[in-house]
């Protein structure tokens, strides 16, 4: 039995302890904003915040998160999350949209750590998130816009 917090609510899981957090979130908790893209931590579509830092949920066995706080796209909130979502909408960043939950979770974590990121900071924080539609040009601009909006 694993006990953890999901978007502020206490949850338990008593299935196969090897089950990746991704499938617990999607199949058992039925929160589907977090996506499957590769299963091997190569694409970042499954990015969640685990105790405040971005984590690839597809390679995180549920047995390793006892007592942890998990935040998904459905639960992410605060100044940085609001700024990122507003900037994403303002530039119409998504195309197919499938990877964008993961992109947003990585971008929010970046701004929480580095409120005014440089292009190199963005490369460092976002290179783990693949977008096959290649919306990268707008992702970069949206992160800069989000950072600027938080300054005021």
């Amino acid at each position, binding site marked *: 039995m694993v006990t953890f917090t999901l978007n502020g609510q206490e949850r338990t899981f008593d*299935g*196969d302890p*090897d*089950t*990746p957090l991704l*499938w617990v979130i*999607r*199949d*058992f908790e*039925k*929160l*589907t*904003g*977090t*996506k*499957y*893209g*590769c*299963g*091997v931590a*190569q*694409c970042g*579509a499954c990015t969640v915040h685990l105790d405040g830092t971005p984590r690839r949920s597809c390679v995180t066995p549920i047995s390793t998160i006892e007592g942890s706080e998990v935040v*998904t*796209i*459905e639960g992410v909130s605060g100044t940085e999350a609001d700024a990122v*979502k507003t900037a*994403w*909408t303002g530039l*119409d*960043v*998504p*195309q*197919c*949209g*499938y*990877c*964008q*939950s993961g992109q*947003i979770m990585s971008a929010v974590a970046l701004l929480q750590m580095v409120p005014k990121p440089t292009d190199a900071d*963005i*490369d460092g924080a*976002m*290179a*783990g*998130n*693949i*977008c*096959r*539609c*290649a*919306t*990268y*040009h*707008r*992702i*970069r601009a949206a992160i800069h816009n989000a950072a600027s909006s938080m300054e005021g």
Partner: protein
Amino acid sequence: MTIQDINATRRGFLAGSGLVIGVAIAPKMLSAAPTGVHAGGDPALAPMNAFVKVGTDDTVTVLAKHIEFGQGPFTGLATLVAEELDADWSQMRAVHSPTDNKVYANLMFGLQGTGGSSSIANSYEQMRKAGATARAMLVAAAAEDWKVPASEITVQKGRIKHTASGRESGFGAFAEKAARQTPPAEPKLKDPRDFVLIGTELPKLDTHGKTNGTAIFTLDITPDNLLIAVVAHPEHFGATVKSFNDTEARKVQGVVDVKQVPSGVAVYADNTFAALKGRDALSIEWDLSKAETRSSEELAADYRKLFGEKGLDAANNGNVDDAFKASGLQTVEAEIVFPFLAHAPMEPLDAVFIKADDGSVDIYNGAQFPGMDQSVAAKILGLDETKVRVNTQLAGGSFGRKAQFGSPYIQEAAAVYAATDRSRPLKHMWTREDDIRGGYYRPMYAHRMRGAINAQGQITAWEQVIVGQSIMGKADLDETSVEGASNLPYTIPNLKVSAHNVQLSIPPLWWRSVGHTHTGFAVETFVDELFQKIGKDPVEGRLALLGEKPRHAGVLKKAAEMANWGSPLPEGRARGVAVVESFNTFVGQIVEISVGPEGAPRVHKVWCAVDCGVAVNPNVIKAQMEGGIGYGLGAVLFDAVTLAKGGKIVQSNFHDYRSIRINEMPDVAVEIIKSSEKPSGVGEPGVPPVGPAVANAWRRLTGAPVRQLPIVNIVSA
């Protein structure tokens, strides 16, 4: 989110709907629905036209006949409707239309389908007429109610007005009354000069749900009691199951069943992880007797053997053979080999099957050809087509992957479902490994080019031989193998293009921009090499041969202007040019590169000019150019699916089938040529020019022509 929630949401969405300008939208489970449609809705409403619904809450919902997977049809089709309806953009919504090969046909295909960058092109008049029809019916309803002549009523930004009497209303109040009006036989369309929405940067309708995790894709449909199924596939194309042992797989907690299906061995489980773990625990012996056992290298050698043989004529202007015999010529030759490419959309292929109480089945999937999926699934499930409803879902990309004649993916998924007793809903999904190794690739091609330059420095002859699979499965010439080459835009007096079709057990498919993925590269790099040989500027040289192609010339000039072509460059940088027409859209691109950290090109900037006729939504057009550039660039720099010695597929996931990432994405500037030509597509045409433009810059920077893709392989070799 459960399927019940989804249905509840849909009912909520439709509740309060007034005007359904549409086919009979039958309620769920109404087996008498004439078209197999089951989109819910209020059966009391009269059907009128298939594409527009006006709600009593003033919302206008467009039923999009084209799937939304990022290329923008929800927004584009809604823009066309809103323009003629004189709606306010804030009241517009879009959903996928039901499946109906007649009512929702792609007017270029003759059946319902999305592809060939045709969504706006084939819908331009149809959707405007749908909007104009709805407007006329709303006006007629208002005229009747207000007892004033319809001709005195104006509509602007979603408000219906009669100035003389001072009356004004939104659409919702007249929705139900409008639904009872006779639609005009031939609705009058606006003069393009009067457009207020078309041509403006309207925000996309699907952005909101894609920024907060609420957008539902096929993989997100999770009804209660759902069974998850995955299939173990072979690592060789053409291999079949000889025998398998499922003892260990069945021991995995959550695995429910294991069955052999035509494409492999299916594992059924209560959750996704159990299904995957069960599949890993299978032991399967494959029969390779009919499998492709040649390596990519051996295939390329076999392709090259065909260069000298008589092929299928694709173009034969002037007399190439004589032209090459003239004296005082310089000749240039090149062979270019293109690898298999996987589409690798972010959402791997998936489908959900749910049996209704009457035995009919709902399929939820990212259906690019929904009518075909319907008939293929019906046959496998042993049901009449009217008992299978394909409910098109948002899809996490496609790039051509889901546009398959004969719906082979749905064949597998339906076979997996048909092997159950159908008492539980079933989700069939592919993993990334299934996707990369699943075939239906952009085929491998080999090109041989020969060019002749006379003493005056003119290109007098061009010969091109193209060897590869026919995507259309044709025995004679397949236009998709030679498009962009057989209709070479450059004026060269002697032109010969021929093709050889190759038969392989590796299934081929179109990949974003189809033949132009290779012909664009071959033509644009070779012509550039010829210009370099004769000392001509790549922009001036092209323009001199594009006298009969003003739209090619237009985008090239614009891109050159954007890039300030000819201005001095920083040390270690070079620029490359390419211009390609595809799907009646013209794109010119100029790139600036340096040698990057891996010794491969680092692309810093792309200037892109596009002429797609009337620009319906410049925001979407720019996004498609940006994305197309990234998609094309990633493939040219990094990607190949290769077969090892013995025919085993080498790549399996994003670690060895690399996707371009944000740190590799260039800055992109896009300008749209102002045009009054009919609108043409933008989903694919951004892709072809970037590869050759990068290769041209690379050759000018390093002296090395790119003869084999991906580029990263040749620089690391």
